[in-house]
């Protein structure tokens, strides 16, 4: 294969658990004003995983949707990476479970990734490199989380569950969005972390904004656009990591993207922050409505800290290769639970 062959997304799948809790119900439990919190974060409800769900089950459901909806032979997937900050095991890969569950093994490169909320896009970069180097036919990258948050912490209003799987390939008849370029911006910035035996992550409050999220997201977006001689006006959609519903809108404003270009991929107001899934579930929502020739800028962010940026160009194939499990339908398919059920679901009651 020539190194100039089109490499890109040949399939994708999303999974969002149906349970939802309203932010006002979380606020009520702690004597806070839910309306104020929802308005300040631009988040109104969040997706909650069931008792028997974890990052692995979410990854499997997203992977199954990707393989089935896009008619991909799982036996031809040569690499599978699962990014998460809530892997069910500290030692024992999630990726090998997903591999067997979708029947992709045993001829399979496999590993779990961890880079806070951007481990899913890190997997996409690895798959992109492997496919471009002609070492594999398809690579699958998954970002999935059942995000942890300490009760009555600011994170509790946003930390949610969900994930997406992307299959990277090079078959000209299958590529629905060509990856034109990818670039990462990385520094050692301790804005958010979780030590090995801690149940919940810690964060540095307002420090997670300017020197962390905005510095990395804006830098990655600017540099990849400069590198490719492109400007905000050249893109139809932009998808940012979305820890809340406000940060991506501000990032879009700083980078001179119109609001209508960021809103289709901004899902945190309705499902919360799905951590490793957040930016790529947003990308899936944009691909659900994309047309041929649409240009998409994707910029993830992972605390610690780094941003992965991708420039994608939608191809004609999207007219006949599309997801049958639309993100919008998953968002609208929901069952509300109260705070008591929420803490039972997330096993926050310790015996």
């Amino acid at each position: 294969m020539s190194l100039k062959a089109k490499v890109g997304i040949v399939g994708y799948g999303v999974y969002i658990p149906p349970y939802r809790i309203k932010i006002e119900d979380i606020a009520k439990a702690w004597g806070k004003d839910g309306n104020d919190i929802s308005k300040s974060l631009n988040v109104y409800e969040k997706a909650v995983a069931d008792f028997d769900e974890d990052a692995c089950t979410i990854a499997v459901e997203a992977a199954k949707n990707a393989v089935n909806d896009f008619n991909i032979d799982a036996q031809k997937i040569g690499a599978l990476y699962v990014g998460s900050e809530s892997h069910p095991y500290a030692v024992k890969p999630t990726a090998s479970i997903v591999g067997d569950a979708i029947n992709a093994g045993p001829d399979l490169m496999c590993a779990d990734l961890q880079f806070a909320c951007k481990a899913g896009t890190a997997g996409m970069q690895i798959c992109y490199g492997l496919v471009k180097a002609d070492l594999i036919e398809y690579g699958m990258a998954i970002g999935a989380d059942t995000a942890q948050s300490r009760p009555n912490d600011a994170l509790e209003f946003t930390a949610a569950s969900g994930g997406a799987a992307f299959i990277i390939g090079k078959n000209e008849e299958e590529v629905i969005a060509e990856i034109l370029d990818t670039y990462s911006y990385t520094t050692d910035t301790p804005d958010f972390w979780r030590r090995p035996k801690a149940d919940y992550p810690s964060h540095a409050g307002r420090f997670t904004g300017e020197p962390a999220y905005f510095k990395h997201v804006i830098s990655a977006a600017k540099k990849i656009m400069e590198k490719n001689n492109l400007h905000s006006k050249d893109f139809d959609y932009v998808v940012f990591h979305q820890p809340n519903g406000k940060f991506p809108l501000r990032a879009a404003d700083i980078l001179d993207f119109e609001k209508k270009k960021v809103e289709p991929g901004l899902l945190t107001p309705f499902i919360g922050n799905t951590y490793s899934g957040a930016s790529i579930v947003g990308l899936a929502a944009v691909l659900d409505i994309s047309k041929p020739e649409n240009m998409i800028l994707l910029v993830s962010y992972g605390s610690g800290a780094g941003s992965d940026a991708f420039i994608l160009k939608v191809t004609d194939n999207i007219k006949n290769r599309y997801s049958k499990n639309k993100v919008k339908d998953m968002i609208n398919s929901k069952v509300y639970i109260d705070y008591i059920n929420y803490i039972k679901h997330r096993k926050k009651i310790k015996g």
Partner: protein
Amino acid sequence: MSNYALPLIWRKFPERYNLLGNKCTNCGRSYFPSRKICPNCRRKGHLIEEVMPKEGKIISFTKVFSAPEGFEEEVPYFLAIIELINGVRLLAQIVDNEDHKVLIGAKVKMVFRKISEKDEESPIAYGYKFKIVE
């Protein structure tokens, strides 16, 4: 899942992850879980592996309030006899649904879930459960 059962659980991964059963090429009957011999054809039977369909309907169900060890935190939950679209029946947990939607005849599809975990240091058993599709 206790550690001593690990080899047993591991052998069941294809069955639990992908509903792998078998089929008799002589009479065409499908079986899940897999059979060692076809009870219909006996020595004339010839069994080959067959992946079961992932869709079906509820034949009967019960709501569990008093759960066995390991499932106490999940009560109340539904257990159902499900008939897959190839006619094979199996017992599975029904998840993710509002109570009024769990009905005899309701259409279901397989989902991948945690089945059990003894404690925080034990391995996790994953496998099939079903959810209602509307």
